[in-house]
C-alpha cells in the first residue's frame, strides 16, 4: 500500500493493518519522519513538499519490489505527505512486516534510504521570512549506495 497525500496519517492504523498480514508475520518495523526545526536552515517553522504525481508512486512501488527480492517482506505500507507541513508534523511513514526482525529492520531502512534519494519529492524549508529548497545530501546518497 503506497499513498501520497496532503492529509495527516495515523501510525496506529497502519500498524493494525500490518498486523493483519498473515500468520507467517513475526516482526513489524516502522519508521516515521517528522518536520524538525533545523535542516539546511535553522529556525525552520514549516516545510512545503512538492512531488511528481504518478512517478513518485511508481518509484516507491519499485523500491518495495526490490526490498521483496532481497528480504522476506510480507506486507509494506508507505505514506508520504505533500503540501504545507508545520513543525513536528509527520512527513513519511514506512512499515514493513516479515517473518523475522532482521528482514523487517533491513527492508524498512532500505526503503526509507532509497526513497530519500530516488523518489521525486522536493522539500522547501520555511523560516520566519525566508524559503529555501533543500539541497540533496552526500550522506544520503552514501547511505543509499551502501545497500548496493
Amino acid at each position: 500500500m503506497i499513498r501520497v497525500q496532503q492529509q495527516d496519517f495515523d501510525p496506529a492504523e497502519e500498524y493494525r493493518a500490518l498486523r493483519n498480514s498473515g500468520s507467517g508475520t513475526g516482526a513489524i518495523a516502522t519508521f516515521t519522519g517528522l518536520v524538525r526545526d533545523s535542516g539546511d536552515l535553522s529556525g525552520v517553522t514549516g516545510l512545503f513538499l512538492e512531488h511528481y504525481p504518478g512517478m513518485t508512486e511508481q518509484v516507491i512501488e519499485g523500491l518495495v519490489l526490490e526490498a521483496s527480492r532481497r528480504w522476506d517482506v510480507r506486507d509494506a505500507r508507505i505514506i508520504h505527505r505533500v503540501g504545507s507541513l508545520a513543525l513536528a508534523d509527520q512527513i513519511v511513514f514506512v512499515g514493513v512486516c516479515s517473518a523475522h526482525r532482521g528482514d523487517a529492520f533491513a527492508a524498512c531502512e532500505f526503503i526509507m534510504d532509497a526513497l530519500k534519494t530516488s523518489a521525486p519529492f522536493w522539500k522547501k524549508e520555511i523560516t520566519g521570512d525566508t524559503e529555501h529548497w533543500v539541497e540533496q545530501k552526500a550522506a544520503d546518497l552514501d547511505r543509499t549506495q551502501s545497500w548496493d
Partner: protein
Amino acid sequence: MTMATDNSITVKFFARLREELDTTTLTVEAQPGLTAGQLLRSLATKGGSWAQLDGEQPVMIAVNQVMTKPDRALQPGDEVAFFPPVTGG
C-alpha cells in the same frame, strides 16, 4: 511554446527549477535523434534563468516518469521531466 501536436514532446519542471524558470510545462516539437540532454542544452540557450540548465547545476532527467541518462533519445509523445536532485523523506 507551441500547441501540442502528435509530433510533440511534453516537458515538465519541478521544485526549484519550476520556480526559477517560472514554467511548469512546455511543449516542444520532436526531432529525429534528439536526446534529453540535447533538449536540455537547447533550452539553456533561451538565456536568463534558463542558462542554469547548461550544466551549471545538477539536473535530473525522467522520461515517461522513469529516471534516465541524458543520452536517451526522445520520441513523439514522450513526457520529459527536468528537476533538481530529490530531497524527500
